[in-house]
């Protein structure tokens, strides 16, 4: 059970009042008519699935009904910060020194990337942390 700080109501509330809405900071292609199918497909369907720091969009659906962002560690479930729409996170994978990997762990312990276009070709290699 999360205890989430709503940046608009300015206080902590129970998770029951909120609803997650997926990855944050996804930018719609500026010119959809002229972007490639790959760009449009990435925008519509493909999302990051990092182990570690994840920036996600939540809505305070039973409170102020505003959307805002949460930076959360997907391994510990710890919420590191919440911040209003239009702002950038202060805690990021780079800055927190947390290893960010794309993909899901497979049964044999390796990594399998998901999405049309992996952002990093070394995703399947374990990096020393």
């Amino acid at each position, binding site marked *: 059970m999360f205890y989430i700080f709503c940046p*608009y109501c*300015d*206080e902590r509330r*129970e998770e029951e*009042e909120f609803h997650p809405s997926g990855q944050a900071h996804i930018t719609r292609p500026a010119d959809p008519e002229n972007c490639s199918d790959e760009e449009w497909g990435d925008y519509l369907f493909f999302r990051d699935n990092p182990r570690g720091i994840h920036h996600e969009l939540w809505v305070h659906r039973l*409170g102020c009904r*505003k959307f805002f962002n949460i930076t959360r560690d997907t391994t510990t479930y710890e919420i590191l910060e919440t911040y209003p729409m239009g702002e950038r996170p202060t805690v990021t994978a780079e800055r927190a020194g947390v290893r960010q990997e794309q993909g899901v762990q497979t049964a044999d312990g390796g990594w399998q990337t998901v999405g049309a276009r992996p952002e990093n070709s070394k995703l399947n290699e374990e990096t020393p942390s």
Partner: protein
Amino acid sequence: MSEARSENSASNVAVFDTHPSDAIDAESPLHWSRQRGVIDAAAGEGQVTVVERPFLGHLILRGGAIVLDEAVRETLGVSLPGQPLGLNHDADGSRSVQWLSPDEWLVIVPAGEEFELENRLRAQLGDAHFAIVNASGGQTLLELSGEHAREVLMKSVTYDVHSHGLPVGKGVGTVFAKTSVNLRRPREDRFELVVRRSFADYCVRWLLDAGREYGLSVE
């Protein structure tokens, strides 16, 4: 057309008085429960009392805080709560303005006043960027008071309803018995629940059950 709009935007907004004439009986959201005897049969010793306040005028105001504050002061004599979760009342306590979100406030006035208020607000706001929605038909207000009112709420909402969590002059949107509620504290000894009209019956039945041990009665 666009020129006419910019000259006098108020006249281009379709407004109408949602109150029917007195010849037509209006039924409260709890009508069904009253008719079926669910409520009458539940008269207790009155350590907790629920009073239904149907047909009040509910207006949702949206826009910038500064421009709305000026208009609300002018028309209602109440200032807009500047802080999140604020709830302000007029001198006799029958008209209120509540913060709902950074650009949204709820105004509740006695029955029948909302249409005139809406028109006065529209005239006052002129060409400002704003929206007013009459939500009177969509929600209703229940008052909860009595010695054990807080205990009944503690069983029903996730929010901390102690005076340090919900002091007088505060209103919050939260979870009430698996549905939503706008929970307000206008006075030390009274809570107000603004609930969806279609959920009013469910909420009252929940309160009847939660308040049974305290002899909860509904008026």
